[in-house]
């Protein structure tokens, strides 16, 4: 049986972003990094930033982002991406400078660097993917892990008395005057993915409009680290928002 060709040419409603390499990723099945990579590629494409982007890859699962995003990349030490990005930005004022960091990288070992990049109002944009665990090293406790969350280093679940509380670092960064845009989105549903893309765009504009530091935290899933199927892990994101509410915490991009 042959399928008849449509009479009019098909209308393209979705395509691979130009800046996203056409190859399969090393990420685990169901991981949210692929979705976030796509959103970043779409926004950079739409804003025409690709040719002047210098991105900084952080240590963690997404250290290989340079394999998938078609822009210049520098690989930073664990946690230091905002300082590395600062160095780039200060000598390349025409560049668009972006860091792509996970929660272990940004909210544990890299707290000093992210806080002071924000405090300086550094004209850089940070994509902060929070999946509540150290995925690459085998699913250990992260500062962002939920209370009660079982990880390979909290086998009985995160106990506030022993392991402290989840760190709401994006809310903390929103308090800093140098932060022009801070928001938290999620890859939990198609609608939320659309909102997350709008947030990424705004965080990029904080830099292109010379307003200050921009950060988007994106709640993402780690099926392997969480011991869930991909579908279960996506559903679980609906509970993660009890600890990490979604929304825009500060937006000074429109201000003059």
């Amino acid at each position, binding site marked *: 049986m042959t399928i008849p060709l449509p009479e009019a040419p098909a209308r393209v409603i979705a395509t691979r972003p130009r800046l996203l390499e056409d190859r399969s990723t090393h990420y685990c099945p169901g991981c949210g990094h692929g979705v976030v990579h796509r959103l970043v590629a779409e926004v950079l494409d739409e804003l025409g930033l690709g040719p002047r982007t*210098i991105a900084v890859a952080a240590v963690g699962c997404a250290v290989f982002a*340079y394999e998938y995003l078609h822009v210049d990349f*520098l*690989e*930073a*030490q664990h946690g*230091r991406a905002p300082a590395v990005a*600062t*160095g780039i930005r200060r000598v390349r004022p025409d560049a668009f400078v972006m860091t792509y960091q996970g929660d272990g990288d940004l909210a544990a070992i890299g707290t*000093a660097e992210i806080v002071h990049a924000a405090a300086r109002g550094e004209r850089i944009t940070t994509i902060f993917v929070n999946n509540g665990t150290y995925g690459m090293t085998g699913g250990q406790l992260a500062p962002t892990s939920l209370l009660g969350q079982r990880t390979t280093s909290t086998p009985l679940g995160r106990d506030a008395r022993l392991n402290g509380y989840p760190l709401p670092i994006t809310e903390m960064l929103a308090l800093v005057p140098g932060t022009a845009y801070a928001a938290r989105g999620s890859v939990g549903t198609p609608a939320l993915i659309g909102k997350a893309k709008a947030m990424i765009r705004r965080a990029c504009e904080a830099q292109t409009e010379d307003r200050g530091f921009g950060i988007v935290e994106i709640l993402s899933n780690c099926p392997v680290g969480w011991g869930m199927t991909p579908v279960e892990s996506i559903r679980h994101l609906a509970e993660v928002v009890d600890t990490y509410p979604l929304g825009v915490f500060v937006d000074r991009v429109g201000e003059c």
Partner: protein
Amino acid sequence: MTAAAPERVLMKGNEAIAEAAVQAGCDAYFGYPITPQAELLEWMARRMPEEGRAFVQAESEIGAISMALGAGATGARVMVSTSSPGFSLMAEGMSYMAGSEVPAVVVNVMRGGPGLGSIGPAQADYFQAVKGHGHGDYRVPVLAPSSIAEAMELVADAFELAERFRTPVILLADGILGQAMEPVVPAYRNPDRRDADWALSGADGRPPRVVRSLDLQAEALERHNDRLQAKYREIERVGARWAGEQLDDAEVVIVAYGIAARVARSAVAMARAGGLRAGLFRPVTLWPFPSAALAELASRTRAVLVVELSAGQLIEDVRLAIEGRSPVFGHGRTGGMVPSPSDLVEALRRAWAATEPVEERRGPGR
């Protein structure tokens, strides 16, 4: 290009190093306050913005070296400076620079250690600087000035070396060189720029570039290491530098670098006034170490005395270079203490008394 000011001026070491960097075309400086190098940071805080260049007082030495990694990866001419405890914090970043082949000049104005130590002059970071500093299998050229004028010259040389070989380069000074003032005739030099066809500038009309040190494929990472090692052999071949004083007829020779060599120079003069034919061998590069020249000298020297502001670090490289060609003695002070010339004359006399003339020596030294 030179912008020479012919008249002699009195300059403080830290400030002289900073101005030499400005005149050498340094595009970006990153630092963090620590004694005894703080004046270097302060000088740059004023001068770099004046020249329309980048200056950031970082949140830590970790931040400073990371900023240098970022700026250096774009092909900019970059300097950071610190003192010993901050130098430890920079070890991680320097390892990444070595691995991803990003040039930068790192100034360490050494102070007494270990730990918080003192703020006095020391050479206690010799091993740390010379033996690689951070994790992984790499080497870093180390330039060791012994005067403020020489420090200014070596700043330009350090940038040139860093960019030629795509490597961090250490300028190793100490609390006295940083804090003292000396008359100098500034002879600035701005080394020619190299075409940085590897540097990050945005993938505009060309394929993206990636500057990184990670490679999870063992075979590929070994190939990368082989290439780095070949580069280090080339630096060893062309890069070893040293200076000698009164060596032609010397029976006993002091080996010392940096500020220790200044004391040694006075000791050599005192010893000669007292009838002991002494000389000075001063490594200017600590890596690559001027081993061949020192070995040749040792074969015709009665005794070698290693003088250092550390408990016995330089002496290990001296022994490795000399390989038993002559007896080696050590005189080290620590904690910010500096030996007097008369201390060293006494040590030279003891070394002379404990040894026999070269002609009567037995064994491989003959």
